[in-house]
C-alpha cells in the first residue's frame, strides 16, 4: 500500500495552524481540546472525539484538512470544523442528544452537516454544508425530491431544537 506523507513544515507554521484552527473551532462553538496533527489520516481531515465530559472532548484536525482548505474546489476549514461541532452538538446538546440518540452513522453524518451549517454564518460555508448533507442522502439512495424534502424538515427541526 502506498503511503503518502505530508511535507515537513517549520515549527512556526505548525503553531500558526494550531492558532488558526483553535480560533475557528471556538468561533463555531466547539468546547474542549483542539489539536493539530501534522499527519495524514483516514478521516478526510478532522475528527471529533467524545470525552468523559464536554470539556474533555477533542477536536483533531489533520494535515489534509489544511491542504483541502487551500483548494477552492474543496471544503473550507471552517466548514470541516463546523461539521465536527455538529457531531459534538449531537452528543452534548441536551435536546438533540435526547431525541437523536442511536441514529445510524450515515444519519449522524447528515445531521452533523446540518448542525454545522446552523452554527456558521449564512454564506458559502453554510451552503456547502447543506449541499453535503443533501449529497449524503442522495448517496444513501434517496430520490432527489425526497432528499431535499428531508433536508428542509431537518433544517427546521434542528433549528428549533438548538
Amino acid at each position, binding site marked *: 500500500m502506498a503511503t503518502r*506523507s*505530508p*511535507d*515537513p*513544515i*517549520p*515549527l*512556526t*507554521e*505548525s503553531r*500558526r495552524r*494550531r492558532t488558526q484552527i*483553535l480560533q475557528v473551532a471556538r468561533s463555531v462553538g466547539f468546547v474542549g*481540546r*483542539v*489539536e*493539530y*496533527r*501534522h*499527519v495524514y489520516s483516514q*478521516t*478526510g*481531515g*478532522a*475528527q471529533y472525539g467524545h470525552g468523559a465530559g464536554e470539556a474533555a472532548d477533542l477536536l483533531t484536525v489533520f494535515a489534509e*484538512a*489544511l491542504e483541502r*482548505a*487551500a*483548494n*477552492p*474546489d*474543496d*471544503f*473550507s*476549514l*471552517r*466548514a*470541516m470544523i463546523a461539521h*465536527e461541532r455538529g457531531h459534538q452538538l449531537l452528543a452534548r446538546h441536551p435536546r438533540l442528544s435526547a431525541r437523536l440518540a442511536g441514529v445510524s452513522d450515515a444519519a449522524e453524518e447528515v445531521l452533523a452537516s446540518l448542525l454545522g*451549517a446552523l452554527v456558521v454564518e449564512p454564506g*458559502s*460555508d*453554510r*451552503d*456547502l454544508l*447543506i*449541499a*453535503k448533507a*443533501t*449529497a449524503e442522502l*442522495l*448517496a444513501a439512495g434517496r430520490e*432527489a*425530491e425526497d*432528499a*431535499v424534502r428531508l*433536508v*428542509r424538515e431537518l*433544517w427546521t427541526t434542528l433549528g428549533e431544537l438548538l
Partner: protein
Amino acid sequence: MTGRKTLREVRAELEAALGAGPAGDDEVAESLRRFLAAGRNGKGTPNQPLHLTGGASLVPESSQPTGAPPAGER
C-alpha cells in the same frame, strides 16, 4: 469525520440529481441553488488560503506533539 468526498464531487452529484437546484423560496432551496450556481460560475468556495511560511530550516514534526493548549483552552 469530515469525509473524503471533495466539494467538486458533491457538486457533481447534486447537479446530476437536482440540475440547477430545487424550486422554492425557503432557505434550503436557495442555499442549494447558490451552491450549484457558484460551481457553474466557476467561483468555487472562497476558502481561506493556506499560508506556508518560508524558512530556511524545515523541521520534520510528524511525531511532534502540538503542545499543551493554553490554560483556559482545555
